[in-house]
């Protein structure tokens, strides 16, 4: 448990900084929106790399690679690995399947609503929808929303969807925390000059970690 988090931090930070560097260097005059997009792209990519091999990371990278506007940034970040990665993560067929599935889902819902309307018209009173149906409807709707949120979730069901969502939530939280602290670091550095050598606080830190220091 600790091990994954350690990995995630270092890899994530490294990847994110690389992405930031690239996005800062390629395009100076472009708008903030585009810079924000490229930063978000690099952050997502960093998160996916830091997590390793899971379903949602693959799906995320595929999605990121398919958008046209991301390609230049991705090329800058990944360098020579870009072609390898994109060859591995390009599956346009997947998304066609998703489109087809969405149509069937909406048609099912339409027919269900039509049935309800018909039954209510016949009975003339409020529809006696049994609670299980209501509950199932609620749960299905929310599952669909979750499927849309989690990358690659459209193809998962039930417990696997939940486990992927769990993993994704953990990584998202880690990503948010890392970006927050990175931003705080930039804020602090902008307020003070970078060439400061803060000897006093570091000594305080070393004093608190004497045991580990003696190992080295």
């Amino acid at each position, binding site marked *: *448990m600790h091990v994954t988090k350690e990995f995630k931090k270092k890899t994530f930070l490294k990847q994110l*900084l*690389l992405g930031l560097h690239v996005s800062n260097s390629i395009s100076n005059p472009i708008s903030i929106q585009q810079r924000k997009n490229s930063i978000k792209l690099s952050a997502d990519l960093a998160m996916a790399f830091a997590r390793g091999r899971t379903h949602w990371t693959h799906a995320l990278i595929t999605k990121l690679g398919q958008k046209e506007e991301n390609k230049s940034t991705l090329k800058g970040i990944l360098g020579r690995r870009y072609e390898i990665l994109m060859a591995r993560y390009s599956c346009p067929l997947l998304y066609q399947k998703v489109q087809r599935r969405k149509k069937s889902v909406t048609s099912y819902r339409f027919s269900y609503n039509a049935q309800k309307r018909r039954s209510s018209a016949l009975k003339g009173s409020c529809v006696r929808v049994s609670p299980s149906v209501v509950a199932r409807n609620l749960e299905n709707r929310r599952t669909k929303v979750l499927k849309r949120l989690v990358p690659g979730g459209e193809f998962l069901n039930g417990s696997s969807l939940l486990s992927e969502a769990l993993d994704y939530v953990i990584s998202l939280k880690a990503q948010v925390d890392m970006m927050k602290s990175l931003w705080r670091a930039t804020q602090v550095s902008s307020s003070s000059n970078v060439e400061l050598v803060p000897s006093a606080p570091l000594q305080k830190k070393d004093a608190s970690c004497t045991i580990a220091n003696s190992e*080295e």
Partner: protein
Amino acid sequence: MVPVSGAGTGTASPFPLWPGMPNLSNPIAESFNPGMLNQSSNKFPYSSVLPPGLPNFPSEPGFIERAARLSCFSANAGFNGLMNNSISNQAQKGELNSMNIGSGSSHGNQLKNQGSIDNNSETNEGAEDKISNGDNANANGDSSQNDSGSKKRKRKNQDGAMGQGQASMKSQEEAGKQTSESKKEVDNNGSKNTGKNGKDAADVPKGDYIHVRARRGQATNSHSLAERVRREKISERMKYLQELVPGCSKVTGKAVMLDEIINYVQSLQRQVEFLSMKLAAVNPRLDLNIETLLSKDILQGRGACSSTVGFTHEMFHSQLLPSQPGLLPPGLPGMLNPSDPFRRAINTPLSAMNPFKDPNPQMSTTWQDELHNVMSMNFATNPPLSTQEIATKPSDGFQL
């Protein structure tokens, strides 16, 4: 109108009872229980117990551990430790098989949602348990009507109007979990909670993921077994998610939990967008210096601490070794001197693995302190899923 559970059981016991037929598989399972559970390899004795029609579940070693973790949520890092714990738990709880329903009903009492209706549901459980002990659930057609557990029967009786066909069984099971939320009726609340708590107490007798044992008084139909396994998997994931999502410890039921999860994911994604906007607004020139320093420190810290911390993921080492030398402009030798104590500061928390919940605010005076906090941040909630994935994929990492 859907009948109240108390009234429902009296009138609607729709499935035919088989008092004459002996319970073939369950007594055998009972007798095997104490002896076989002490073995570490649980697979062979169970396979003779199950009816031949049981499909083989796809074997995933991760699920063995997950099933083992159903009983204990301790944050042990050791895989072996957890397996031993689960086996010992099963050995203890195997003898409590007959008392599981009782404990489930006592849980229901503790909930104190309502007075008389809980008693009704308990007596329902008790009566149906006695009846089901004489049942034979092997025949497929009968088992679909027979229902695989007292809890299922209870939910069935509440729904009342639903038929007993196999097709409707699944919907009933799902509905049984969420009826309390959707209907907000007192009786559904009580029985659903008892059902869930009973399930928590009684879900250990299942061995590992692949071979599912039919619990006492439940159908041994392959469909219902698979259904129960699936439901328990889902409930286990929901429990983990409950621990993870803040403010969800008191929420029960799938629908509301899903709602909370969706809200949380959306809020996290919005936070990422917001933070990336903030980072985009930072002056790029200033950012560059920090980046180069950070990358240099990280790479140095990585090389030094890989020996101190026993990581087994070689992939990450190899991933980092082709560092980006292009990042490091040649004109920064003077800046690297303060990085040595900083590097030591990075390595110490990593080797000590102290979990900090939040970065100490007094320490974040300088940017080096901030980076130190970044590296030493550990996340409090570490669900066992990550360890399980590490255990199953030892050389994990992004293969580039």
